[in-house]
């Protein structure tokens, strides 16, 4: 079908079709054939888009396993894992004797995505299953250097995948172009392959996005490719964000930015009054920013599905008045952080003084700050008969000087 995604249409169907990573492929097949006594589970790891998932599926088929897959989109709490995995691994199924199927193969994709609250006990559940399994277990991950996978790694054969080499990617792209009747400049395919940084999947996606039937794909066309995985800094994010002309553009900038959400919110707040000088527009933009922060609060540490509302509101804040945009000098280090850094010594002094007042006057630091500091500083400013009061409160000369010069909040 013409509209099919090429990554799906040209997904390899045999082990031989999977390009690159020959060594890893051999190791995996050997493990699957069970040629040597080895561990019951295998963990394939390496960058995205190099064929880990594909290899498991095609090899599983070739060796007549029924693949039972769970991936990051399933919730993998201990309960959920056990519900699927325990039956899959504890008996081999009735059709073992009646058909060609050798048995089950449990495939847990993206195990590095098991995290925090949602996948409570997930790693432990997997470990238990590996210990009791009668069927092979395959796992895949991008990053295995994370702490929570450490106990899991000990139980697995580790097979490393590397970025697919550029010439191999170019060959794949060429083959697809020929099948799709796309004429091309070789340099264009080269650019796409290099830009993909060894990620076959993204290279094929880019090829499909750039090519049109009946038109030659040129090197010029590839200029439209964004640099993949490029670290878009705070500065660039802010610059593009404030210049956005519509919500689509603003949303794109936000979703490609690698700046952490909380830092971004803070910095947008710091620059908003430079972007909008008209009080009505400024208030409107800040209202969106405020709502964005409200949703950030609701996201907390677990309701990540609400994050889209944070960004939707942020996008709105960017386009309150697109016509008025003029470039301006950005403030990137957050004002809050800078302020709190420079005032820290003073705040510490004040807290210490409040503790001393609290001890003598049976009051909390907070009450000391609100009710005693305003008057105490006035008494000290009089400089008459203050020495015994200072002694009674055990104030140091530094604290006295600080209090005398302190401005009211």
């Amino acid at each position, binding site marked *: 079908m013409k509209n099919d995604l090429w990554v799906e249409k040209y997904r390899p169907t045999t082990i031989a079709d999977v390009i690159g990573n020959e060594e890893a492929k051999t190791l995996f097949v050997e493990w699957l054939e069970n040629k040597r006594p080895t561990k019951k589970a295998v963990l394939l790891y390496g960058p995205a888009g190099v064929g880990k998932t594909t290899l498991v599926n095609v090899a599983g088929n070739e060796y007549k396993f029924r693949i039972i897959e769970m991936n990051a989109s399933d919730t993998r709490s201990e309960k959920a894992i056990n519900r699927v995995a325990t039956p899959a691994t504890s008996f081999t199924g009735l059709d073992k004797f009646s058909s060609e199927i050798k048995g089950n193969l449990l495939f847990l994709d993206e195990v590095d995505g098991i995290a925090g609250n949602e996948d409570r006990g997930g790693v432990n559940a997997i470990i238990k299953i590996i210990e009791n399994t009668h069927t092979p277990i395959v796992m895949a991950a991008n990053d295995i250097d994370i702490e929570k996978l450490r106990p899991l790694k000990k139980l697995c054969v580790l097979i490393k995948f590397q970025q697919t080499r550029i010439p191999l990617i170019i060959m794949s792209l060429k083959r697809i172009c020929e099948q799709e009747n796309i004429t091309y400049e070789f340099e264009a395919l080269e650019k796409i392959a290099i830009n993909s940084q060894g990620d076959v999947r993204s290279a094929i996606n880019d090829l499909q996005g750039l090519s049109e039937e009946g038109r030659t794909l040129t090197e010029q066309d590839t200029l439209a490719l964004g640099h993949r995985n490029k670290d878009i800094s705070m500065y660039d994010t802010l610059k593009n964000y404030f210049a956005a002309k519509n919500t689509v553009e603003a949303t794109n900038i936000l979703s490609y930015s690698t700046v952490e959400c909380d830092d971004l919110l803070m910095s947008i707040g710091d620059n908003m009054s430079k972007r909008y000088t008209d009080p009505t527009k400024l208030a409107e933009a800040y*209202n969106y920013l*405020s709502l964005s922060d409200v949703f950030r609060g609701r996201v907390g540490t677990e309701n990540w599905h609400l994050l889209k509302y944070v960004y939707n509101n942020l996008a709105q804040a960017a386009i309150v008045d697109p016509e008025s945009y003029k470039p301006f000098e950005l403030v990137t280090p957050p004002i809050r952080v800078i302020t709190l850094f420079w005032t820290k010594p003073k705040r510490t002094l004040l807290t210490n003084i409040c503790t001393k007042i609290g001890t003598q006057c049976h009051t909390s630091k907070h009450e000391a700050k609100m009710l005693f500091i305003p008057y105490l500083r006035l008494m000290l400013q009089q400089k008459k008969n203050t020495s015994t009061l200072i002694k*009674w409160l055990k104030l140091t000369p530094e604290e006295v000087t600080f209090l005398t010069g302190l401005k009211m909040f």
Partner: protein
Amino acid sequence: MAINEETLMWVEKYRPKNLKDVVDQHDIVESLKAFMRKPKAMPHLMFAGIPGTGKTTTALCIARELFGTQNWKNFTLELNASDERGIDTVRERVKDFSRYSRGAFGDVPFALIILDECDQMTGPAQTALRRIMETSSRTSRFILICNQSSKIIEPIQSRCAIFRFSRLDRTAMVEHLRDIGKKENVNASSEAIWRIVDYAEGDLRHAINALQTAAAYKDGAEVDEKVVSQIIGEASPKQVQLMLNKAINGDFIEARRVMYDIIGIYGFTGAEIIRQMQKELFKISYITPEQKAEFSNILGEYDYRLTQGANSDLQLSALLAQFARVGKALGDSS
């Protein structure tokens, strides 16, 4: 201590030592005296009421009456719940203390634990506190102090005899200030004292601090209404006022700068700053009551968003931006 008593903080120097001297809380004092006659029957107590109405003073008086003026400190643990770093610290200190002071003193078979600002404790901390109260009930009695008893969880409330401290009667406050003035040889005019009492809004410590400061300003001369006004002006939240005025006059950038000045030195939370703004807003003379209501509603909206949001600076900034918008519109129309 060889310290000249003249110059200590008067709130401490004139804090009543006996229940009968507590200012203007006669009904409460009478009920408490009954417990003092039979201390074994004393339950946990909870004192609720606005600041400066004698809750801590009453608690300290009870400690003195129970254990005597010599020993009371040995059998009394005073904790500020909001100052202690967490419920674990409270638990540890209560445990250590109740073990140490077991089988306490004479007729009183328990130690006294005074826990101030309990309404600042989180829900889980209060639940833990309830456990602590249960496990140490044979060795300890608690006096829990808070501003609003409604913020204390039900199981704790039901374990306490609750006493509500009402706002102090103004005449009683005036008398108390006069009494202190007499002892300190401060000559204060009647107008000056009434001005202080009006300003203190029922908080006696506030009033005493103001009187002491005024006396320091006059250094022996008569404390008149003028010096009181001066002090009140000096001790009012000038930067909060500045921030408000800048915002209402449409100068958002300057208002936000002042906001960070305040946060930097005083470390206030967003909620504390909004509370201050609310108080000061109604003192502004150049806007109408209707306009104040409009600004106040903005405060209310952002006070709420603050509880929902993640970053109070953003909410405060957004609040100032709304003020600047409304303020600018007022300026343009007049």
